[in-house]
């Protein structure tokens, strides 16, 4: 009987010890998971998806590749450059979230910047403010201006000319002389500057926190480490409940014995 009680006490103590050491061991991870979870739950309010890391160490850790400069157009003193799926007016990233590249060219019409994508014509101010977009039901090949400074699109369904306020397109009149937009070579200095800007606009704080939350930030080992931690936290929770139940049972028993004794 004594042996059985001692064995039970030993098991209880072992469980208590294990619970304690797992609790201490997973303390920092648990705190980090809670903090990062809280941050990720409020990504929009904290604008974590719109803030980007400029830390060179992190960029190296993520192994950000060199940007692919596809096309560029020189517009007076400004440069419009397409890098991967982004468009930069000088160093400003133009908001293109609803539209799909490829970028086919751009022209200046008075104080308007007109950009041709495959199915859309986008209008921006020279300061990069978004004005409007016109969807074209044809594949745009290139754009240009005619002798009257009217916008002309060369599409797979023929040549289209816009009205004055750029809301409608009709077939081009015959024999119109068109100055088609040309693509240019990007100067090396601008290329280097844009490479840096582009690389610094890829890894959002949300991505970093999410990867740190899952352990992925340090590769596969980090994920396994977080898996192990998750298992330990499950054990911690279960052992906590078992200890609580054992104590409750023990309390009831002693209460029952006391009652019996004094009855």
């Amino acid at each position: 009987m004594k042996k059985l009680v001692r064995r039970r006490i030993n098991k209880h103590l072992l469980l208590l010890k294990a619970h304690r050491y797992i609790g201490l061991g997973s303390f920092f991870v648990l705190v980090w998971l809670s903090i990062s979870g809280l941050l990720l739950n409020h990504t929009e309010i904290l604008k974590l998806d719109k803030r980007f890391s400029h830390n060179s160490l992190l960029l190296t850790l993520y192994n950000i590749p060199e940007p692919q400069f596809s096309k560029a157009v020189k517009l007076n003193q400004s440069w419009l450059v397409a890098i991967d799926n982004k468009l930069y007016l000088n160093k400003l990233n133009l908001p293109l979230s609803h539209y799909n590249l490829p970028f086919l060219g751009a022209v200046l019409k008075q104080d308007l910047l007109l950009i041709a994508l495959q199915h859309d014509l986008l209008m921006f101010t020279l300061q990069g403010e978004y004005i409007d977009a016109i969807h074209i039901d044809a594949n745009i090949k290139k754009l240009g201006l005619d002798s009257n400074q009217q916008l002309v699109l060369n599409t797979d369904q023929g040549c289209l000319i816009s009205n004055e306020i750029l809301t409608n397109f009709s077939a081009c009149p015959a024999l119109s002389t068109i100055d088609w937009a040309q693509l240019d070579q990007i100067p090396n200095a601008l290329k280097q500057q844009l490479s840096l800007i582009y690389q610094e606009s890829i890894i959002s704080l949300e991505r970093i926190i999410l990867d740190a939350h899952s352990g992925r930030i340090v590769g596969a080992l980090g994920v396994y480490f977080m898996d192990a931690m998750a298992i330990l936290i499950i054990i911690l929770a279960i052992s906590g409940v078992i200890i609580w139940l054992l104590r409750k049972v023990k309390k009831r028993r002693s209460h029952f014995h006391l009652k019996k004794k004094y009855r």
Partner: protein
Amino acid sequence: MKRLLIFSHIVLFSFFLSLLQAEEIYISQENYLKKAFAQDILPKPSVIWIKSDIKKTVTEILGHPYHQLRLKYWEKAGKTVWILNEIGKEKYITTGITINTQAQIEDVTVLAFRESRGWEVKHDFFTQQFINIMKQNDTQLNQQIDGITGATLSVNALKAQTRMALYLHEKTRTSSH
């Protein structure tokens, strides 16, 4: 335990249902315009620039500047139709608003809803509240709009869109007359 299981299943089911609700296009812009003008041949779009005073008022109405500087609208015999985009919580809600010659709202229809919650605003029981509503002097609506529990941000977005459409309709009248 049984109740807990039923509750967890309901929560999971609602979660998947809310995912299914995301990014729905109910009616195309072209079809809405055809419905609004009750004809197949549509009037050519006109444009209004959201600049200076207009930009200031629109910013006051929405609580932020409109995402584009130029807006297309369609007009025929004093009736105007506006297709506006406004963010509910995170994504744009595209709404068609028709305003009649008396500057009253004739129709409000949600054309596309991209949020995962608050899609109840697309229903007629909500949008019909806007019919015959006019603008007060301070760009507010002249009648109260009842909200929907759990769709406050979408309701606010639709209210802001209707206020903006009524204001812009008035602007097009004053500039053309």
